């Protein structure tokens, strides 16, 4: 069965929250978590982009907590994948 590798890259100046691993909520209801990226020493943010290898249909909703460093806040980002 074909696979797809998803990689999350934040826009310049943003960081992806590693305390709350990004997820892919698939249409069948299953939830897969991104992993594998290197994190800051305090384990709070990804330094290297986290990835997810999906076997089968990758369609669903990607959810991530993204923290722009210029604002000192975190926001929830959702992307529909099809």
């Amino acid at each position, binding site marked *: 069965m074909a696979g797809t590798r998803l990689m999350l890259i934040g826009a310049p100046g943003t960081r992806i929250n590693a305390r709350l691993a990004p997820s892919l909520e698939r249409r069948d209801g299953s*939830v897969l978590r991104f992993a594998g990226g290197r994190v800051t020493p305090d384990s709070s943010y990804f330094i290297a982009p986290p990835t997810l290898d999906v076997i089968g249909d990758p369609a669903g909703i990607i959810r991530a*907590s993204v923290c722009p460093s210029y604002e000192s*806040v*975190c*926001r929830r980002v959702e992307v529909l994948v099809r």
Partner: protein
Amino acid sequence: MPRPILTLGTAAAVVLSAVVGLNAAARSAAQAQVRNPLTGEQPSVRPAPAWRNTSWLNTPDDTPLTLAGLRGRVVLLNFWTFTCWNCTGLVPSLVAYDGAYRDQGLTLIGIHDPEFPPYGGEHDRSNVADALRKYHIEYANAQDNDHATWNLYDIQAWPSYVLIDRRGNIRYEGAGEFHVDDGNYREWDARIRALLAE
């Protein structure tokens, strides 16, 4: 705001780069029109809406605190989640305000709002309780798992805070992490003291 849509090709997919920037910029611009993050400039005074959270921690017998019941006290609401580094980075400042001003009439309330659905663990009361202990938070906290209070106060980001005067009016709103004795900490400290003196 509708969710961005990504249609995958056959190669490895790179996601979020433009989307995150777009979302952050759009929301930052929208937020700047209403309030200035960190400095908390408030265009107009208005009555604070009453929250109806039912699950509370750090109150006697876990009894809910109500806005009506706090009339006569200055209230600082902090919208946060324990998975957010900016939120936990802000906590020492909030703990400092609580220690300095609780006896003078300040009631600090954490409104715990999960970023993710329940599989993220943020909805579990025991996890929230663990976080309160870990970060030495002694002020009241309410679980806002359905985001009812978050939506009531039109909150856009983690952490956010709302300062309410003794008459129940919103006087300042802000968002973002700051630290004890930095400029923003002193600014909000001055606002709290000013409202306590009213």
